[in-house]
């Protein structure tokens, strides 16, 4: 009787360990969004940017960025991507408004409504029909495990999905190279935006 109880306890223990082990990689993969349904928009868009970088390709990219040791921006980018598991970007620009449907965006939002994802920033402008959101997924240690950015504008739809530990401050602070505006440029952009906003108000 005792032996049977012990064996039941052992089976339960091993099943628990197995479930826990299976759950670990699943949790890491949760931050990955399904973006394939957006592919159909490529036909309507005037400009398409489609990036799919999985773990191996990211490591290779990090290795090649490491070769540009004299370039601080390359080193910055390298330090940002070296621990990532994936970067997925789908960006469409259209010459006419309303080329994508609300259901296309809803499909993404429904995935981001799943447990684990938290919307940290939302900007809605009903007049201009603009809707921008930033989501973050955190792991059990409260570290960032994934990021999603959705920018839905009349003539543009962009979805960025980063899987893995990413530092949003560093990501935001990237500047200079390849047209990424640095702090000075950002100040300039801010002033310009403020001026345009005040001009609109007047």
């Amino acid at each position, binding site marked *: 009787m005792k032996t049977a109880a012990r064996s039941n306890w052992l089976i339960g223990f091993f099943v628990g360990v197995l479930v826990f082990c299976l759950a670990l990689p699943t949790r890491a993969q949760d931050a990955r969004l399904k973006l394939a349904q957006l592919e159909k928009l490529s036909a309507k868009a005037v400009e398409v940017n489609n990036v799919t970088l999985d773990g191996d390709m*990211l490591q290779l990219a990090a290795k*090649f960025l490491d070769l540009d040791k004299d370039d601080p921006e390359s080193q910055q980018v390298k330090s940002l991507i070296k621990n990532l598991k994936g970067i997925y*970007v789908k960006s469409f620009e259209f010459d006419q408004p309303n080329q994508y449907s609300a259901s296309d965006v809803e499909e993404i939002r429904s995935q981001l409504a799943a447990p684990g994802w938290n919307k940290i920033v939302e*900007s809605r402008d009903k007049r201009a029909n603009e809707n921008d959101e930033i989501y973050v997924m955190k792991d059990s240690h409260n570290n960032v495990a994934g990021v999603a950015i959705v*920018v839905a504008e009349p003539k543009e739809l962009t979805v960025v999905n980063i899987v893995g530990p990413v530092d949003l401050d560093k990501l935001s602070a990237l500047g200079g190279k*390849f047209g*990424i505006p640095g702090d000075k440029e950002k100040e300039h952009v801010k002033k310009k935006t403020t001026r345009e906003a005040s001009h609109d108000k007047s």
Partner: protein
Amino acid sequence: MQFSEDDLRAALRRKDPGESFTESVMARVNQLQARVTSTPKAGSQLGELWHGLLRRPALTGAAAGMLIVGASLGFVHYRGVQERRTGEVAKQQALLALRITNAKLNHVIERVKTAQTP
């Protein structure tokens, strides 16, 4: 025993082997040609090459070694070129992805800041 040069000439005069000899030669010529015709030329050349290689084992070994070393170096070089090409593409993709991410992130932040500005 006495003999003259003419005796030697007479003793060693030419003998014709007869018409049967001519026929035998022609039969062998035909046989040889039939064999050459029935065997594909490239095949016979390969065969000759193969037999030539078998006759010179040291040379064959050296050639095989050089071939293996050459093929290995070629393969390593090819792999290197392929990896460089893929690595460069991956690097450009990573930079593009981060540029878009950075731009969109800052765009959203700017909009929020702008919205919060009284």
